[in-house]
Each structure stands twice: as structure tokens, then as C-alpha cells.
């Protein structure tokens, strides 16, 4: 579950006030809005990467408002994917697991599981600069899912893909959502993407969130 209660974020001249949002567990939420309206800011706030001035963020049954990003249990896929350039696909998928000091066998089991889920088996030893757009997107997704977060935050994950890949990735995202039961919050500009994926549909307009059923 994602619940935002009366969130206020001020930054320079930019301001979001009184943001309310509720997305129940396992649902696929899509957040739309015009460029610069604060969608990414809101996503970063959920991940703990941006300070909020007021309000509460509740993920699952925990109030994470004052927790560092590492302890919130979120998976984050930024718009530019930000794959670590010096690490192979395998290392990226294992990154969160190594930090949690899991055993070697458990890590490799989980990496294989993710590789199978996302179709990355052939790519495990590649570096990010040898990946295509779609492949990079799947790796970023896998890296964010590795530590089994309860919430997955996707910032325009499909914007840089061509038509065919776009469709494939939509299927994959649905599949991931269904398989893992992770709550997804997905930012996009594309109404068709929203229509296709959204279980819940939100619009951010003039600093307020409208919920379409």
C-alpha cells in the first residue's frame, strides 16, 4: 500500500501542497500530469530522496516519513535508468542482495530468478554500455526488484522505447505486477500506456491529485 497524507514539498519557487494519494497493495497505479508539474518530485519523496516539509508517507503498514531511503523497502527505476556503468548485469541484480549480506548461493539463486522473470539470462555478464534500450530497462527493473520491495516506483519507464518494445515492456510490467504482487506507481505522459496498465489512475494537476476510477 502507498498512502500519502497531506504532503507539502517546497523547493525554490515550486510548491506541492496537500497531496493525498492512496494505492492499495498489489495494485498498479499510474500517475499522469504535464511536464514540470511535480510527478518526479513526488516519486522521489516516496523513495526518500527528497525532503518533505509536511505530511506523512506510509508504505505497507509502516510510516516511513523519517526513514532513510535504504529502509523504506522501495524499488526505484529513474527515467534515465542510471545503471551503474562499471558493473555487469549480474552485479547490478545482486547489488541490493550483497548489501544485505545474503549468502552466495542465495544471491545467485535470486539473480537467476530475476533473470528468468525478465529474460536476462543471456545478458548477465554484459556491461550496461553493451545493452539496448529495452534490455537496459529490464535490468533497471530487475535491480529495483531484487530485494523484494513492497513498492516499485517507475519514472517514465517506457518513454525511450520504440513501439514494439513498448508493447513488450507493458506486458512484462503487468506480468511482474501479477507475479510478485508488488505495488507499482508508474509515471507516464502517455494516455494509452495509462489505459493499458492502470488499475488506478491519478492526475497531478496544479499541485492537486485527481483520482479517476
Amino acid at each position, binding site marked *: 500500500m502507498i498512502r500519502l497524507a497531506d504532503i507539502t514539498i517546497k523547493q525554490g519557487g515550486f510548491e506541492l501542497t496537500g497531496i493525498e494519494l492512496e494505492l492499495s497493495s498489489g495494485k498498479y497505479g499510474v500517475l499522469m500530469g504535464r511536464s514540470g508539474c511535480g510527478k518526479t518530485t513526488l516519486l522521489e519523496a516516496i523513495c526518500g530522496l527528497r525532503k518533505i516539509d509536511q505530511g506523512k508517507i506510509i508504505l505497507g503498514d509502516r510510516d516511513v516519513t523519517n526513514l532513510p531511503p535504504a529502509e523504506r523497502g522501495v*524499488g526505484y527505476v529513474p527515467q534515465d535508468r542510471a545503471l551503474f556503468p562499471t558493473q555487469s548485469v549480474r552485479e547490478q541484480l545482486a*547489488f541490493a542482495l550483497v*548489501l544485505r549480506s545474503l549468502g552466495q548461493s542465495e544471491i545467485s539463486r535470486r539473480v537467476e530468478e530475476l533473470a528468468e522473470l525478465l529474460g536476462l539470462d543471456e545478458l548477465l555478464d554484459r556491461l550496461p554500455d553493451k545493452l539496448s534500450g529495452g534490455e537496459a530497462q529490464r535490468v533497471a527493473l530487475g535491480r529495483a526488484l*531484487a530485494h523484494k520491495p513492497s513498492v516499485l516506483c517507475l519514472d517514465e519507464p517506457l518513454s525511450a522505447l520504440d513501439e514494439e518494445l513498448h508493447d513488450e515492456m507493458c506486458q512484462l510490467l503487468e506480468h511482474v505486477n501479477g507475479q510478485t504482487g508488488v505495488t507499482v506507481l508508474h509515471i507516464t505522459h502517455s494516455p494509452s500506456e495509462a489505459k493499458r496498465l492502470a488499475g488506478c489512475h491519478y492526475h497531478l494537476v496544479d499541485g492537486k491529485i485527481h483520482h479517476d476510477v
Partner: protein
Amino acid sequence: MKDKESVVFRVASDKPFLIGMGILGGSYLLIIVSMVMADLFFLNYIDQSVLGNEMIRQGRHVESGVVVPTEKGRRYFFRAGKNETGLRQVDGSLLGTGLFTADSDEVAIVSSEEGKPVTASLRPEVRLKNFAITNNVATLTTDEPHGLLWGEYIRVSSSDVVGWDGVREITETTADQLSFKLDEGADLAGTLRLSKPNPLVQALRSRDIRFSIKLSLISCTLTTLFSLWIAVPIGYVMSRFQFRGKAVIDTILDIPIVLPPLVVGLSLLILFRYMPDWLSDAVVYKWPAVVLAQFMVACAFAVRTMRVTFDQIPQRFEQVALTLGCNRNKAFWRVIMPQAKGGLLAAGTLAWARALGEFGPILVFAGATRQKTEVLPTSAFLELQAGRTEGMLAVSLIMIAAAVVVFIVARTLGMKRIFA
């Protein structure tokens, strides 16, 4: 009348633009390469004869040329100056710069224009008169003053006995005598030849210069390590965090770059007047002063490089790492530093090269004491002061070689990172 529509629009050629850029860039490249090549060419790599005193009386040229008495059968070294065309022997042959054997009792220097001052030089090759061995030390007497100094090196070759051959350090000199140590069991030699080894050999043999090479390599490496140690955190903080007074700190960090190097040295010297005695005794005019003087300047360059490096790594990487379970510390070491390796290498190379060339602050703050605070630029300076251009050049070549080696190593490591 022509139809306006049919006039084809033509854009001016790019040739002048490209050629202009090529010429400007090319001439700079040419100067860089020829500068280094000039050093390499100027140095005389062949052993030189030991020469006696100047034989030409300075004055003005007269019509018949300047006549100089010579000893038949003896070898002389002639160098034509800018007012001479050469040297005429009795048989009529005209000689240019170089060694020759006199074939009569006199030679004449041929002037290029009458009434001009003499600028040529003629010096006899020194011959050995006799030698003696006491306690394995050979003392040679020459028939002309040899001009060699204590601590210089001489190449001795002997065709018939063992224990003499090799480059030997002169342990004692007078105007026409010089002593050096022989190998164990050396015997009286029949024929001996003396020559001056080339300046590079002289420099590499010299204890002072060996010390300065060692001190330079050690101090530059220490400086580089300290600089990176400081530059990485400063560069990271300046790149990632916004805080009050950042602009002021930024300016302060640039002070060592904009300040004249001599002033840096002087400021350090004065600063250490206010330090406790034990500290200033341990640093000033000692080797730590060399490292500190190098560090003050080199570190500023390393900081700049590291800051640019971190600026070029988007914050996104850390943000993702934070959501995956890192704290800032882990995100820095696991995600950012591996990407900053290239920048780290660049900063290290830059700091090393700066430190190697540092001279002014070291001279002021550490002094130029042989075998104590002498680094390679100091050696070059001392050689120049002693009037030995060739020695200075030899030291410069050693510095060029050191810099080239470091750059090649850095590039190779950098390549590995890129192509791995």
C-alpha cells in the same frame, strides 16, 4: 531578366575555416614536439675529449687571419664562432668545428670579416705526462690544465691492463693533476686514454643528482597520495552539497593556483615562524618542506580535477544506490568511486607532474642544499648556476623521461579501464 527563383543559393567554402584551425593547432603541436626534440638533439651523447685552456688571444681580426702557434702532431679542438669561417692549416685545408691533428707549427683562423672581434675557440687535447699509483689510487699528471673538477666523472680506457677501464669519480684535483680510485689489483698501465663521459652519464653517476632523483620520485609520490587523499573528499563535497559560504570556499581552493609559486613558498616559510619550534625544526629546510611545498600547489589541481570528475557523475546513481540499501558512505565507495577511477588517475598524474616541476616554493621553503633538499628542478638550477648548460640539459632529460613514464603508465592503466 533572370528568374529570381532559379538563383541557386551557395554557401561559402569551409576550407579557410578548417585550414585556419589546422594551422593554429598544428603550429602549437609543432612547437611542443620540436621543443622536446631540440633538447634531445642538443645534448652531446658521445664522450668528449679532455681539453686544456683556450689558446686564442681575444682581439680583432686582421687581414691575414689570426695566427696561433700549435704543436705538430698534437690534437686540438676548434670551434668556429660567428665571425670566423674556419681554420687554415699550412697545407691550405680549411677546417670547421671539430677535432683535428696539427700538421705544422701554426694555424690561422680565417675571419669572415675584417675588424670584427674573435669569437672562435681553440683548445689543445690534454695529454698524460705520467701517472702513479698509491694505495690503489691513481694520480695522473697532464701536460695542460685539464679543467676537471672534484666529483666529476672521467672515462678511462686502457688497451693493455686490467683495473683501469671504466667511468671513475675524480677524488682529488689540482690544475694539472687528478686522482681516482682503481679496481683492486690494478697494475701500472702502458697506454691510457681519458675522455669526458656525456652529460647524461655524468648526471646519472653524480651522487648529488642521484639523491635528487630519489628525493624527487619519493616526494612526488607522497605529494600525489596526500593530494588525492584530500582532493577526493573536497571534490565530492563541493560537487554534491550546497551550503552557505560555498562560493568563498571555492575561491580559497583556487588561491594556490592563482598565487605565484614563489609567494606560496614564502608564505609557508613565514607561517612556520609561528609554529612550535619542534615542528618548524622538523620541516623548514628539510625534506618534509619539499613535500609540503609541492603538496600546496599540486593538491589544488587535484581538487579541481576531482570536482569536475564528480560533477560529471549524475546524482541519480547515488539515489538509486540509496534506495537499494546503501547509506551515503557505501553509495560513495561502491557506486561513485568505481566511476571516478579515470578522474582519480588524471588527478594523480596531474598532481605528480606538477610536483615534479615545482621549483620556486621549494627553493624558498626548503632551500637548495645538496643531498638534503635537492630535487630535480633544484639540480637543474644548480647546474645552470655553475655554468654547465649540458648538465642542466641532462637533468631536464631525466625529468622529461620521468614525466613520460608516468604519463604512459597512467594512460595504460586508463586504457585498461576503458577496454576491459
